[in-house]
C-alpha cells in the first residue's frame, strides 16, 4: 500500500490516539513525510505476512522528550545515519524498516527513512501504543535483542551500543540521548522476517490510519466521533473500549526530568462524572484514578480527547481549562501475557496497583 497525503493526516490522528498522550505530536513527523512525498519519494507499506522469513528488518525511531522534539526539529538525516550504521555493523543491507512504536511521532520516522532510502515499511510495531522505555517492546518480550543499537544526532555523532540486555541498552542509550539534547534518533531490534511475524503487533500502521479515518468521517457526518471509534474497535485486535471520564482540566503539572516528560493532569468531572480524575503521566498516560480508585491502568490505553472535536490531546498540549473525555481501550493479548507485563506492566513504572484489564474494572 502506497501512502498519500490524506493517509498521513489520518495516521497523525490515529497515532496520537494510540500514543495515549505520549510519543510526541505527530505533526512534525507528518510534515517530514509530506516533504518526501512532495519530492516524489514513495512511502510503501508492506504487510508482515508478505515479507520473506530471511529478510533483514531494521526498525528506526526517535527517542527522548516530545517537549524537546516540538522545539528542536530534526535535520532529517539522523535516523537514516543510525540505520546505515547498523547495516555496516551487521554486514548486511536492510530489506525494510519498521516502527518500534505506533504512538505519536515514531509512527512517522520510519516512513521518512523508508521513503528516503527506497525501503518498504513493515505495517507492524513492537509497542502497540507508546511507551517511555526502549526495552518495552514485544520484540524483546519474545526474545529479539535490541542491540546492537545506533544512536545519532543532527551533527552526525553516532554511538553504537552493544548491551547485555535490552534494559541495559535503554539505560546506556538514554544517557547518550540526554547528551544529544534530550532527543536522538535510533536504529535497533534488527531482526529477521520470521522474527517480525512472531513478535510484532501486526497491522498497527493501517490501524492508526483507520482510527483517524473513523474519527474524521464521524466528525464530517455529525455522528459522535468517540462513539464511532468505540464501535469500530471490536473489529480490530484492540477489541474493547469505553469512556471512563469527562470533564475540564483544572491542573496540569509537567516537567522534563531525566529526558522524560513527567507529570499529572487533574480533570474535574462534568455531568454525571463526579469528583476528579487524576492521570499520571510519564510521557504517556499511565494510570487514571478517581478518589484513589483505579479506572484504567497501563498497558491498556488511556487516551485524553477533546470532548467537542474528539481530537486526541498529547501530554505537551494538555492545558488548563480544556474540556476532555478520557477513553480507555484494551490492548491485544500479545501485550497482556505475564511475560509482557513483566516488561511493561504497572510495576515497571513504579505503580503499586496490579494490572487489571479495562474489561474487569467497573
Amino acid at each position, binding site marked *: 500500500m502506497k501512502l498519500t497525503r490524506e493517509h498521513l493526516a489520518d495516521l497523525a490522528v490515529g497515532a496520537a490516539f494510540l500514543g495515549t498522550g505520549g510519543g510526541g505530536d505527530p*505533526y*512534525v513527523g507528518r*510534515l*517530514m513525510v*509530506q*516533504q518526501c512525498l512532495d519530492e516524489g519519494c514513495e512511502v510503501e507499506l508492506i504487510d508482515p505476512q508478505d515479507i520473506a522469513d530471511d529478510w533483514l528488518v531494521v526498525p528506526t525511531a526517535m527517542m527522548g*522528550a516530545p*517537549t*524537546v522534539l*516540538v*522545539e*528542536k*526539529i*530534526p*535535520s*532529517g*538525516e539522523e535516523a537514516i545515519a543510525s540505520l546505515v550504521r547498523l547495516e555496516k555493523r551487521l554486514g548486511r543491507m536492510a530489506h525494510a524498516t519498521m516502527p518500534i512504536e505506533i504512538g505519536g511521532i515514531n509512527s512517522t520516522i520510519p516512513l521518512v527513512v523508508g521513503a528516503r532510502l527506497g525501503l518498504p515499511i513493515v505495517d507492524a510495531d513492537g509497542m502497540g501504543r507508546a511507551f517511555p522505555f526502549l526495552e518495552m517492546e514485544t520484540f524483546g518480550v519474545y526474545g529479539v535483542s535490541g542491540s546492537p543499537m545506533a544512536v545519532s544526532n*543532527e*551533527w*552526525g555523532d553516532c554511538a553504537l551500543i552493544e548491551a547485555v540486555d535490552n534494559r541495559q541498552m535503554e539505560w546506556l542509550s538514554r544517557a547518550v540521548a540526554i547528551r544529544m*539534547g*534530550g532527543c536522538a534518533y535510533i536504529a535497533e531490534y534488527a531482526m529477521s522476517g520470521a522474527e517480525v511475524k512472531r513478535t510484532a503487533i501486526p497491522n498497527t500502521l493501517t490501524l492508526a490510519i483507520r482510527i483517524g479515518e473513523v474519527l474524521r468521517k464521524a466528525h464530517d457526518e*455529525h*455522528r*459522535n466521533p468517540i462513539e464511532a471509534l468505540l464501535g469500530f474497535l471490536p473489529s480490530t485486535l484492540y477489541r474493547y473500549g469505553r469512556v471512563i471520564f469527562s470533564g475540564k482540566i483544572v491542573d*496540569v*503539572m*509537567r*516537567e*522534563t*526530568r531525566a529526558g522524560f516528560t513527567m507529570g499529572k493532569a487533574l480533570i474535574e468531572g462534568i455531568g454525571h462524572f463526579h469528583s476528579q480524575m487524576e492521570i499520571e503521566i510519564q510521557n504517556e498516560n499511565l494510570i487514571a484514578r478517581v478518589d484513589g480508585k483505579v479506572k484504567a491502568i497501563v498497558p491498556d490505553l488511556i487516551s485524553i480527547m*477533546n470532548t*467537542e*472535536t474528539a*481530537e486526541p*490531546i498529547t501530554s505537551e*498540549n494538555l*492545558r*488548563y*481549562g*480544556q474540556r476532555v473525555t478520557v477513553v480507555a481501550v484494551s490492548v491485544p493479548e500479545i501485550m497482556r501475557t505475564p511475560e509482557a507485563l513483566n516488561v511493561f506492566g504497572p510495576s515497571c513504572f513504579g505503580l503499586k496497583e496490579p494490572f487489571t484489564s479495562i474489561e474487569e474494572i467497573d
Partner: protein
Amino acid sequence: MRIGIDVGGTNTDAALMDGPAVVAACKSPTTADVGSGIVAVLRKLLDMTGVSVSQIQAVMIGTTHFTNAVVERKRLLEVAAVRLGLPATKGLPPMTDWPRDLADTLGRHTFMLRGGHEFDGRKIAPLDEAGLIGVARTIRMRGLRSAAVTSVFSPVTPEMELRAAEILKNEVPDITLSLSHEIGRVGFLERENASIMNASLADLSQKVVSSFRNALRELSIEAPFYISQNDGTLMTPDYVERYPVLTFASGPTNSMRGAATLAGEKEAMVVDIGGTTSDVGMLMQGFPRESAVAVDIGGVRTNFRMPDVLAIGLGGGSLVRDEGARIGPDSVGYEITSRALVFGGDTLTTTDIVVAAGLEDIGDRFRVAHIPAKTIETALDTMHRMVDEAVDRMKTSADPLPVILVGGGNILVSRDLPSASKVIRPENASVANAIGAAIAQVGGEVDRIFSLEGTSREVVLTGAKVEASERAARAGADPASVKIMDIEEVPLAYLPGSATRIRVKAVGDLVIG
C-alpha cells in the same frame, strides 16, 4: 461612558456604551486610510447622541485589518526569515507548510544558520555571527525592511535572538525586527510562523496604529485607547505597533462575546457575516469555544489561544457569478459603496441580491430591477446553503442550537436554517464586534523564572496567580471579576534549584472612570 470600535474589511462600526447598556451604535464604510473612516463613524455617533468628548472615558478598538492583510496576501512586507538552529531543524525549512502564494508574497527569503540552544540551555552550536553579517548583506541588497529571528529554545533563553538582533540592527540600522521569544511559546514551527507573519505586518501596524491615534486626536478625544488582542483582552497602542500578530482573531472573539451579550444566550452558534467573509463559531457558557491545538491563520499554523472559528467566503460584498450558483470568495470589500449595483457600480454582489429580492432597501433598488428572478432565487439558495453548511460543520453534535446572526452582512440570511433550533437577529446585531470590543477585558500577566527550591509548586503557583490578579486589577480590572485565564510552566532544567518559567494570565472587566 466608553466607545467600542470595530474596523472591519468593509465597515467601521462604533458603539457607545454606558456600563453594560448600548446607548447608540452606527457604522460607516472603512476607508483605505482607516483613519478617516473612524473619524466619520465617531462624528456620526457623537452627533446622534449629543454626548461630548469629555464624557468618553475609554476607547476600545478591534480590528481585523491585520488578519485580512494575511488572508488577502495584501499590504504585506517581504520578510527575511532568519532561523538559528543548524544543524538541527534542517529537515523542515522556514515556511515549509505555508500556502504557496503567501510564501511567495513574503518573498521566500529564508536563512538557516548555526545557533540555537538545547532544552537545558547548552548551545546547539555557537551563533554563526559571520553568517549573520552575510544575511544582513543580502537583506540590504534585496532591500528588505523587516526580519523575523527564531532561535531553537529561545523561550528558555533568548540570548541568541538578542545577539542576532544586535548584529542585524548594526548592519541594517532601519530594519524592523520580530524576535520569536517575544511573540510565542515553545513549539518551534508555530512560533516561527507567528514571528514571520508579525514581521510581514511591520509597516502596516505603524500606519494603522498612527491612523487610530490621529483620528482620536482630530476629534479631541483624550481618553486612553486600547486595541483588542486574540484572547479578548486589551493591549496598548505601542504594544500593537510592535506585535500586530497578537490582534489575530480578536475579531471573532469580540463578535462572539458581543453576540452573547446582545442575544442573552450562552449556548449557541454565532455567525458573524461581514463584507468579505462569515465567521462561524460556537458559544459555550458565553465564551467562544477555543481551539484545542493549532489554529490556521490564512493557512498558516500557529499556537495562539484562539476561538475555534470557521471562515467562509460569504459577505455583503461577495461577488455573485454563474446566475447565482457561485458566490465569493472574492468581495468588493470596502468599495461596496461604489462598486455594488445598488450604489451605481457595475459589480453584482450579495447585497444587490437581497435588495433585488425586496428583502432590504439599500441604495437604489431600481438599479437591480433587471436581475432575473431565477438568479435571485438561486443566489439566495446558495447563500443560505453556505451558512447552513458552515454552522453544521462547526456544531459538535447533531442537536439543533440557536444561531445568533451578527455583523453587517446579517441581512443575507432571511430564512430559517435547517441546522438551527431558531435564528436570532438581536438588536444592534450589525455592531456586535464593536460591542464585544467595548466589553473586552484587561489582563495582568506574570512571566518570570521562579525557584521551586525550599518551597512547593503549589505555593509558587498560588503566589503567581495572586500577583497576576493584582496586576490585572492595577491595569484597571474590577477585582471581583478577575479570574485566571492561562497558566504555563516551562521547566528550566539547566538552572539549579528546580527553576521554572511560569506564565500566568489573569483577566477581568475594565472599571471605567
